[in-house]
């Protein structure tokens, strides 16, 4: 079979799964199921990266988004409330959310089409990006964005700890032990 045909079939198949999963994230009436559909979408994105021969990005996506971000969401849900069965999470902000989502979709689509419309990428095995190349680019050309993002994440981390931290009462100081 022709490799291009296989790739095309694979792309549209994964794309369809991603769209269906993304729709189910917002329409399902169970928060844990919504998180699981989100995993489906993220895994689809990882599959598309593999299709573009970007293995490093693909598995980093699985490791970080599927393995950490959604797991933390599930963890948070279980610690608070995640009832089995259906629940209604709609509120009065529904129309506003629809408008924001539509605007975001339009802007993102327009930017992507405007920037990459008609661009053809060479995906020969020789030109496939290596992990070494990605590292070299991140720590040379893109070192400032990288550092700013890392400082931002660190600030968010410390902020979260400060908010979650409960000031320990006096009783904590070795009562009768």
């Amino acid at each position, binding site marked *: *079979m022709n490799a291009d045909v296989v790739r095309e079939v694979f792309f549209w198949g994964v794309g369809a799964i991603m769209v269906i999963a993304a729709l189910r994230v917002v329409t399902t009436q*169970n928060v*844990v*199921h919504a998180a*699981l559909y989100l*995993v489906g979408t993220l895994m689809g994105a990882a599959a598309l990266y593999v299709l573009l021969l970007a*293995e*490093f990005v693909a*598995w*980093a996506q*699985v*490791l970080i988004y*599927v*393995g*950490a971000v959604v*797991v*933390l969401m*599930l*963890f948070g849900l*279980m*610690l608070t409330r*995640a009832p*089995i*069965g259906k629940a209604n999470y709609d509120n009065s902000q529904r129309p506003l959310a629809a408008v924001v989502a539509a605007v975001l979709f339009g802007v993102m689509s327009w930017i992507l089409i405007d920037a990459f419309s008609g661009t053809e990428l060479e995906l020969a095995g020789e030109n496939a990006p*290596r*992990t070494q190349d990605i590292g070299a680019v991140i720590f040379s050309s893109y070192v400032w964005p990288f550092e700013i993002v890392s400082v931002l994440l660190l600030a968010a981390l410390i902020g979260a700890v400060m908010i979650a931290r409960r000031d320990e*009462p006096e*009783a*904590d100081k*070795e*009562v*009768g*032990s």
Partner: protein
Amino acid sequence: MNWVIDLIGGPQTVIAIAKVLIVFASLLVLMILVVWAERRILADMQARIGPNRWGPFGLLQTLADGIKLITKEDFRPQLADRWTYAAAPVIAAVASFLAFAVVPFGDEVTIAGHRIDFILSDLNIGLLFFLAAGSIGVYGVALAGWSSGSKYPLLGAVRASAQMISYEIALGLSLIPIVLVSGSLSTKAIVAAQAGSVQNVTFFDGIPVLESISRYFEYVPNWYIWSQWPAFLIFLIAGIAETNRAPFDLPEAESELVAGYMTEYGGAKFLMFFLGEYLHIVTVSAMAVTLFFGGWNGPAPDFLGWVWPLAWFLFKTGLFVYLFVWLRATLPRLRYDRLMWLGWKRLIPASLLWIAVTAVVNIDNAQLSRNWKLGAFGVMFAVVMVWVGKGDPRLRSAVSPQRRLDGTT
């Protein structure tokens, strides 16, 4: 016959499919042996006899237990979330199988003109794949606990996800020094870098006794364990915690949580969790062998070409499986706050420190004395860690923080 092979993508595809099937079947057989071995070794350590009735030395006991579990009634709690409840054990088992895809279990062999690597998939980002597969395993545990609709499984699942996320960080950080030293994320390349023996040790030249001893270093295999033992210790501790094995088996602590996240599971579904857990032990052992103990490298006589590497790999992995069982027989379970203290306040800082040490040593490209410099830095590092590891005074008392807060001691 030929047109069928061409239709599915040529001989390479056939080889790949055959390899997957053979490895899958071998792992299942290996599981039976590992479960049997654990029961026999545990029994021996506890001065019991262990299973000895069914087959020679009781070898078929696990098989009998497996058949019993499969033929049991397939029940589901009334409050359970149907699909998630059914999917969780599958995710747990599949995630464990996935990680084995990047483990090189032998050298290559040529059959009928086709070169066959003894590794399922030589990804050039193999270590990343290993970590990603491990992180998917958390889903099996977390979803099982939630979907059971019962309180003990939920508590077990919350514990398990917190523990696995915490120790995953230390596990990932402990791999980075290996990447720095070997310059590759591919497991195959890492094994290749550990071939042969330690050569040209000039570090002790001029020191009377040590110089004569250092001649014998050419008989010492060139494994990363010599220079990277702190990374190995962190990897081992985090790996045991990742597999939820004793002394880190809090997610299924039977005295507190019945059986944790798998309380509501029985029959074939329970078997899947069981399979996943033991497979995870084998995968972590195989990864430890691959990264720190030279993988399939070992002395190989001329006859039986490809069998030797495979035998060495299985032998080394078996030793680690034995270690896992030994630890279970020896160590009591950690208290939860001490588990988190160890993961966040000791293992993660220690691994970050070791990455810094390895990176600094590695800047200099002098190949000759690198292993020895790393060894010396290791000693310094140990001194620092003993000082750091004196412990958190709040954890030193036998009273848990909650009871201390209540003042009911």
